[in-house]
Structures are given as structure tokens and as C-alpha cells.
């Protein structure tokens, strides 16, 4: 019903608190680009290395790696790959709650990864066995053995190029390899660009200002504690010196807000006074009741036009004094550190 087609009514009622969902989204949006950049860097780098190291005689050619001389070792590696692949798949499958918390595109990506892991667990060891060149000399021969080289190289025609190779065939052959080389160079260049961009993004993420990534907490801020107390004191002075009760209450709240910002709890642009208060209390602000009183007084001073008198000023003064005392005696240990960014 409604223009946005609320066919997902059941799903919506089963979801968690919207604030938690928003926090999750924010966390994902913060970490997401870095993870994506890292993934692109790894995949792109691997692909680049594979392209640069590809064999001249085709990608499907059988061969051996540096450790491939021992057939038992190769079979063991295949088995190990199978076990690791199955283990990864099982581990991924055992985290349905984590996947369910993601939004739709990431869920689809997670399901895709799950399928790739399931198939890859079997395909990779199979390819290791199929593409390995097992020879008749057994497992004792090393990769440098001459007979292996001879048996793997294609049989050469009798050496009389002048009489057996037609000029047209030679030209087509040259064109084919030239085109392949150009495409290969383009692919390598494209991969280099992708890897460089991903590396830059990752570097930018890793070198971000620490204040954004790890917000300060109350007990780690000895010098900021002093600034916080000073800010509250300035608010009290505004409260006592100001002739106008409304302006004094607002100034006092602004001082408290500044003190919170100094301690690492900055007001977001979309925060209402209540939002800020809730985050401050969740972050371990001492004397939450006094802060609540001051916030209530501020809202009245800021958004009403009815007269405010000395009683409001006295209430604000008492609340601020309580907050200042609480800050001087030391902050309470925050039970939850959410929302202190």
C-alpha cells in the first residue's frame, strides 16, 4: 500500500532498531571503500602478476611450478587446497547473521562469494591435478630434467623454412601475434591503472586523520578534561554575568556543547539537542540528569518566546555547577562507546 509499495511490511517489523541500523550502515559505508580498495588491489595485483608471468605457449599449457617436480607434493597441495576451500566455505556459511545485517547489494555479493567458494573449493584442486604435467619418469625427476623439456615441447617440422612455409601464412601468423601482444599490453596497462588507483585509495584511507577513525574517550583525555572544565566555567560566567536569562541559558548550553566537542563528542549537523545529549550520556558523560535539565532549559530558551526569569537561570546555574563538579571529580566509565564520533 502506498506509493513506495510496502510489500516488505513483514521484513520491516522484524528488523532491529533504526538507530542501530543507521549505525551499521554508517560503519559499512566507512569501512566499505577501504575494503573494496584492498580487494581490488589484491585481485588486480594477482591478475597483473599472472599476466606478466603467463607462459608463452598458451594459458592452457601444462607445466610445473618450482615445487611441482614431486607428484606426491602436487597431490598433497591439491588436497590441502580442497580442505582449505571447504573450510573457508563452511566458515562463511556459518555467519548468516552477519550476512543478514548487510544491505541488499552486499547481501547479493555475499551470496555470490558463497557460491564461488563452494565451486572454487572443488575446481581449484581439480585444476591443480589436471594442469600439472605428470611425466613417466616418476616423481624423482626435477623440473630441469632435459627429457621433460623435450617431451613437453611440440614436435618441430623439418627445418627447411625457405621451402615449406608459405608467405601468406607467415603474414597471418605475425598479425595474430602482433594483435595479441597489443591486447596484452592494453590489458596490462589497464590493470596497472586499476591497481594504482586502488593503492591510492587505500593509502588515503590509511592516512586519514586519527581523530575521525578513533574518537577520544573521557578517561584518555587528561588535558582535554581541563579544557572541558574551563568551557563549563565559561558557561557559568555567562550565566552569572548576563543580564538576560534566556541568552544566559543559551550561552551556558553552548558552553556545554563546546566542552563536549573538546572532549571528542562533536555535535553532528543533523543532531538535535536530545540527540547530542543521548550520545553524550551513552559515551559516559557524568551527571546525565543535570545535562538533561540544562538541555531542557536550552530548548525552552531557544525555541519559545514566553518570558524566562531568574528561576530558569538558577536552574541552569545549578545544573551547570553539577556538571562542572562531576567533571572535576572525574568522569564515569562509559558503558557504551557508541556514538562518540
Amino acid at each position, binding site marked *: *500500500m*502506498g*506509493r*513506495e*509499495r*510496502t*510489500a*516488505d*511490511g*513483514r*521484513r*520491516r*517489523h522484524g528488523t532491529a532498531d*533504526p538507530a542501530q541500523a*543507521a549505525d551499521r550502515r554508517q560503519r559499512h559505508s566507512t569501512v566499505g571503500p577501504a575494503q573494496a580498495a584492498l580487494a581490488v588491489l589484491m585481485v588486480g595485483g594477482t591478475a597483473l602478476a599472472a599476466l606478466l608471468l603467463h607462459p608463452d605457449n598458451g594459458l592452457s599449457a601444462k607445466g610445473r611450478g618450482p615445487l611441482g617436480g614431486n607428484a606426491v607434493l602436487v597431490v598433497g597441495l591439491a588436497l590441502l587446497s580442497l580442505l582449505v576451500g571447504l573450510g573457508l566455505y563452511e566458515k562463511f556459511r556459518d555467519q548468516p547473521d552477519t550476512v543478514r545485517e548487510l*544491505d*541488499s*547489494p552486499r547481501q547479493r555479493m555475499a551470496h555470490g562469494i558463497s557460491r564461488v567458494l563452494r565451486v572454487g573449493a572443488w575446481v581449484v584442486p581439480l585444476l591443480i591435478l589436471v594442469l600439472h604435467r605428470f611425466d613417466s619418469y616418476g616423481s624423482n625427476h626435477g623440473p630441469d630434467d632435459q627429457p621433460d623439456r623435450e617431451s613437453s615441447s611440440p614436435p618441430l617440422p623439418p627445418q627447411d623454412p625457405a621451402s615449406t612455409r608459405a608467405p601468406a601464412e607467415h603474414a597471418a601468423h605475425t598479425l595474430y601475434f602482433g594483435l595479441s601482444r597489443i591486447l596484452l599490453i592494453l590489458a596490462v596497462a589497464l590493470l596497472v591503472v586499476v591497481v594504482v588507483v586502488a593503492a591510492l585509495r587505500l593509502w588515503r584511507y590509511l592516512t586519514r586523520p586519527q581523530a575521525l577513525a578513533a574518537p577520544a574517550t573521557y578517561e584518555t583525555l587528561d588535558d582535554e578534561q581541563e579544557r572541558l572544565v574551563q568551557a563549563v566555567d565559561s558557561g557559568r560566567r555567562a550565566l552569572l554575568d548576563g543580564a*538576560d*536569562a*534566556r*541568552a544566559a541559558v*543559551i550561552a551556558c*548550553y*553552548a558552553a556545554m*556543547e563546546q566542552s563536549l566537542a573538546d572532549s571528542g563528542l562533536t*555535535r553532528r*549537523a*543533523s*543532531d*538535535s*539537542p*536530545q540527540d547530542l545529549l543521548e550520545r553524550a550520556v551513552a559515551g559516559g558523560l557524568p551527571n546525565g540528569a543535570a545535562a538533561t535539565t540544562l538541555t531542557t532549559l*536550552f*530548548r*525552552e*530558551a*531557544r*525555541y*519559545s*518566546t*514566553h*518570558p*524566562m*526569569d531568574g528561576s530558569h537561570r538558577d536552574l541552569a546555574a545549578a545544573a551547570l555547577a553539577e556538571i562542572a563538579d562531576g567533571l572535576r571529580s572525574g568522569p564515569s566509565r562509559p558503558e557504551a562507546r557508541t556514538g562518540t564520533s
Partner: protein
Amino acid sequence: MTSPQPTPHHDTLTPRQAGERAAAVLDEIRTAVVGKAEPLALVMLGVLAGGHVLIEDLPGLGKTLLARSFATTLGLDFRRIQFTPDLLPSDVTGAPFYDQRTADMVFRPGPVFTHLLLADEINRTPPKTQAALLEAMAESQVTVDGSTRPLPEPFVVVATANPIEYEGTYTLPEAQLDRFLLRVRMGYLTASEETGMLRARVDRAAPEAVLRTLSDPGEVLAMRAAVERVEVDDDLLEYVVALVRATRAHPHIQVGSSPRGGLALVQLARARAVLDLRDYATPEDVKSVAVPALAHRVTLKPELWVRQIDGDDVIREIVQSVPAPQTLPRTPVAS
């Protein structure tokens, strides 16, 4: 369900007095409707703000009970229309009929001539009949055969709709959706609330609770007048405009909120202030009613239906991104 009660005298109510009366009404309704604090408050906001309420949720969550409880406790004349596919517009508004004794055409008022109209399952009737409510909802009057007849004051439409059934249902016209001041979703009860609901049913040994009538139409009008006395700061109005305009610029939204959405937001925020016994609205009031006031007024892009993102999600995101009024006012304040 009803029991006659003496109606209190009411002259001009202050916002605080109106808020206290509204709180008493809500307390009474909570004896019948268990564990729906926020939906109940939202419906009350709709009544106080002078609008119409669309209650949208799954069957069996107490939508009809909620509407009937409000009518009873507020002392309002109550009619119910069960919307069906064969319902005609004249079944809603009324129609003239021929009186053989006087040899004249006489207008027989339809169920819309009441204080509180419960339009049950409004999406089960075709748009033509739904549209018959348009004039009544927007202007509190009905025009039939060229003559306009005013509806009783106050006039409140509480419509219910089932969002999951598509067979035999008709999507509400956009113009009509826009005329609902807010959309309320009930949601499931928690386990403890559901147990409490069952316990209450067993204890009272009757299908429905008997509610006292605590108010009357005149007092409801006085409470609405009190809402009009709630102050709204200029910064707050700009905040409301910013929220509404953000719905028009959001990448997930095809058609944003109309200016009527801004009006609804302001009135609901003022009503929220009254419920909190204040005579001034705050950013918290606006934020708390943004989703119910705006989510049904926006048209999302079609692809979002596949991604299971709905209007509530988008409006919630907008509320978390649009800057709220700053701490310090732009103009100096004085007591």
C-alpha cells in the same frame, strides 16, 4: 464498548491543559489497546493536528480496535464503512432519493456525516469510491447534485489498509494519500506485551474492554485550538522546509513531498509539543514525526522495490542528514 460519561466544561485550553486532557484520553485507550504507545500517540497527534490518519499494517494488529477506541474515548460520533469492491461513491457520501409523500427529492446523508469515520480496508474499493472521500477529507464538506453540505466538526477519517495483499485491492490514489496527515504503522507486540494482551482478555471475560468517554467534540475542537497556540521558531520552519526539499532532491526518490507535507510536519510537531505539555515546538518534535508525516507522500524509484527499501527508510536517512537548527539563534534573543 461505550459508556456515557458527563462531558467536562471546556473553554479556551492552554497547550498544557490540552496536553493533559490528551494524555488522559491516551491512558484510557491504553486499557483497551495494549502495548501500542507510539502508534496511539501518533493517532492522537493526527486528531489534535486536525488531520486524517492512515493506519497501515498487517491483519490482526488492532487497527480497527484502535480507531473505535479513539471514537469512544473522545466522545465522537462514530461510523464505519467497510470498503468492498462493489461499494459506490453514493454509499459513502449519501444520495438523494424520492420521497413519495412530499413528492420531492430528499438527501439521505451517507456514513461520512459523522465525527470520526473509520474507513476500514480502504484499499479494497476502486479509486472512484476512494475519491469520494477526497472532498470530505480536504474541505470537510460533501457536494452531491450541486449542493454542498458541511460535515460535522471535528471530522476525522481513520482509514486502515492492509499492505501485503494485492489480490482484489486498489492502490490509493496519490492525491488521496497526500490528504492523510500521517501514516501510522502498528507493528507486532513484544512477547511480554502480547502475553499482557492475552492476560487482559482472560481477566475481563469479555471480547472487548469497556472504555469511558472522557471528552466530547467541543473539547476536541478546543484541543485543536490549543495546538494553534504552539510557537514555531523561524529556524524550525526552515528546518522543515529543508527536510521537505531534501525529499525532492534525494536520489532514491522519484517524486518528493508536496508543500502539504511541510504543513503536515509543522502541525504534527506542534501537536507533539502539546502532548509534551509545551507551548513551543522543538527540532525533536519535527524529527519524531518526519517519517509518519512524509514517508507516504514520496514516490520511490521503481528499482528500490526490488532492493526492499521503502519510504520510511529513505525519510529516516534524510532526517539523519539534513542539518538541524544551530545552537545559537541567528537573531539575538530576549526574555
